[in-house]
């Protein structure tokens, strides 16, 4: 019996976290966020692709590493810890899982190996499936898709977009299709891409199993939620580390502020609330692969609970930094904003808790 990340997963995590710490200083994040240094972003992206994060969840038969979701969680924690400015949750988790579960043999063969070779990149837009805002929503008739998808993630250089209609039918559209109009959306978190798609009579390549089994779209969603929870957990962990070490150095009233009980207790509260989240998250990821009957509830609860804890951490850690926490100088706000965006992606806490109740049959 071993409850936790395996040695290999720990290594994955530590590598990602260290890679970002070493290669992505706050100055560099700033340049990437402002769009000033696209080359740098590409370089970082390349470095992490070299590690194989793209191949992680692709089955071995298609050339991937065939790892489980917990391995992806280990990576996501590292990306959150270093506000990794690259695609992951959509492109390398939700897309391969969707293709593998819902794709035809031909589709799997074609696309999964292209994910491994990184020839083909996928943006993912399930927001309308989760909760449609404004006049968004996609109408799928035969092999034609029309409508609007908001908040597509990982789509900046995408060759294809993985989308879903309200019924959970998953399909791909080619980014080069004439009917696809792409608009960039700017969120608070500029380290990740965020798009709006307008589809006019676009050819939709349906992943056939998703038509037969609406549980597949839910499963893809679970995976995405677990990954965003992992990202927020990693970001929270970093914010606490930064707050604690700032409090040990910063002096006011002839003392390091970390010797004031108020500051100490804020740090203790953050750490105490975050600590059980690791196990919660890992259990959800483990269940995703090994105890599917428990996975949905655990994924929902992990996403909503960790989002709440992370919000608290993002506020308190900023407060511990005092005025410096509010400036751009330390760049602490990149973590704050990362947590802020993750919180809303694929459903905010209230909506997900409604789902958690539904899963347990609590809603009439």
């Amino acid at each position, binding site marked *: 019996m071993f409850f936790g990340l395996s040695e290999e997963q720990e290594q994955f995590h530590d590598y990602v976290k260290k890679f970002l710490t070493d290669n992505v200083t706050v100055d560099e994040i700033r340049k990437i966020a402002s769009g000033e240094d696209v080359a740098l972003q590409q370089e970082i992206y390349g470095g992490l692709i070299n590690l194989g994060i793209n191949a992680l969840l692709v089955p071995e038969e298609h050339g991937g590493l065939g790892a489980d979701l917990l391995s992806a969680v280990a990576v996501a924690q590292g990306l959150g810890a270093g506000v990794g400015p690259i695609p992951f949750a959509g492109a390398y988790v939700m897309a391969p899982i969707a293709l593998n579960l819902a794709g035809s043999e031909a589709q799997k063969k074609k696309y999964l190996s292209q994910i491994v070779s990184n020839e083909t990149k996928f943006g993912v837009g399930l927001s309308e499936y989760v909760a*449609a805002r404004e006049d968004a929503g996609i109408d799928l008739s035969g092999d034609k898709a029309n409508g609007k998808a908001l908040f597509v993630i990982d789509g900046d250089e995408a060759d294809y977009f993985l989308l879903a209609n309200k019924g959970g039918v998953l399909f791909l559209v080619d980014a080069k299709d004439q009917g696809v109009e792409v608009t960039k959306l700017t969120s608070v978190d500029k380290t990740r891409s965020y798009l709006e798609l307008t589809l006019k009579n676009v050819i939709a390549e349906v992943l056939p199993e998703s038509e037969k089994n609406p549980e597949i779209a839910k499963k893809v969603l679970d995976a995405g939620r677990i990954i965003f929870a992992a990202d927020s957990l990693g970001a929270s962990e970093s914010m606490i580390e930064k707050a604690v070490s700032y409090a040990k150095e910063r002096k006011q009233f002839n003392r390091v502020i970390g010797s004031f009980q108020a500051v100490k207790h804020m740090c203790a509260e953050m750490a105490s609330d975050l600590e059980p989240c690791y196990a919660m998250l890992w259990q959800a990821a483990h269940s995703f692969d090994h105890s599917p009957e428990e996975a949905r509830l655990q994924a929902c609860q992990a996403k909503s609970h960790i989002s709440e804890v992370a919000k608290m951490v993002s506020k308190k850690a900023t407060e511990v930094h005092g005025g410096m*926490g509010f400036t751009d100088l330390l760049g602490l706000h990149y973590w704050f904003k990362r947590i802020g965006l993750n919180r*809303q992606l694929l459903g905010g806490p209230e909506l997900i808790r409604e789902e958690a109740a539904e899963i347990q049959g609590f809603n009439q």
Partner: protein
Amino acid sequence: MDLNYGAEYDDFRKDVQAFCKEYQGVSFKSESNDNEMSDALSGSSVNKKAAKEVTRSEWQKILIEKGFIARAIPKEYGGYGGETDIIKSRIIATEFSKAKVPGGMGGQGIDMLVPTLLEWGTEEQKQQYIRPTLHGEMIWCQGYSEPNAGSDLASLQTKAELIDGNWVINGQKIWTSTAQYSQMMFCLVRTEPEASKHAGISFILIPMETPGIEIRPLVDMTLKAGFNEVFFDDVTVPEENIVAKRGEGWSVANSVLGHERGSLADPNATMNRLNTLINMMKEQTIDGRRLIDIPSYRDRLMQVQGKVMASQAHSLRLLSSKINPGQNVKLGGMIQKLVGTELRHELEGLAIDVLGEIGTLYEDSPYLKEDGSFQFTYMYFLGLIIGGGTNQIQKNIISERGLGMPKEPKVTEAS
């Protein structure tokens, strides 16, 4: 309990209403130092289509002439020359807000420097500075905090030495808003290095054109609001630019500091924001369901509404205590900054949550609600939770001065 202001005030209200009617739709010829988010902060909606144009300075003069601002400031210094009357102030604020007519200028010159000079300044200083400040022709910034003197402001190190009848200033200030637009700074500097921490500080007025001043913009987490760092390298100003005596700077600063703390989170602005949020929750939908019909959002909304209602009623009680000398609400005044900033931060966070992914949008998008101001204000009020005496410091003050609890034992050596 008597919520009526009386006949005199009813008449006054009519005057104000008539004025507002006359000037409805007034707008400003563009001047530089407007903050694009100032409306979100004050909770008001922007009146974008304007009928009449005046300059900020002209508008100030009109308002002073009517006694709507600078009411209790003597005529000889450019004020209206009347009596302080906070009920009239409230009526003015309410009616202007209703009619969406812009109020008088705020800023650290008018809110802080003018009352300071009235209390501590020499006749020459009053003559020289108050009128142009009131007229909006002399903008001031505040030089208090330093990188190593934040919560512990009294440990500030910027030094001023009196050399040949001039103060020669060296050091650095931080969190100086509007420094780049200001003609003048009022500044706390250490003039008596031998004296104890608090007794070594003086209050000095510095023209921002003086050679040796360097202003560096300090970008904050909103990437919008304008703070600065200000560096002094042998900045030289005349000896008479000191306000009060050498070593009295701490007392001078404290005499108006309380005022700033209270004004950081105006309950009326918070109520306006709540109403904006409610309207938005009635309009926006998720899967066709109105946001306000989602029970868990609605319950959070009701919780916030309860707090906002309490805050607003509380501000009336504070008002009452100012005009009814017997009423003691000492603690009531002290909590305003703590409670107000936390509440506002919570409210803006709720707005982001109900908007979900739309709530994460920022800067520029057709889907932005209220110009993306919820995200801006969510962060800005986190800044205010920290700034102006962090809320941890506020809790020290409330427990010590409000509840009479003992101070923490002093520590002399750094640990």
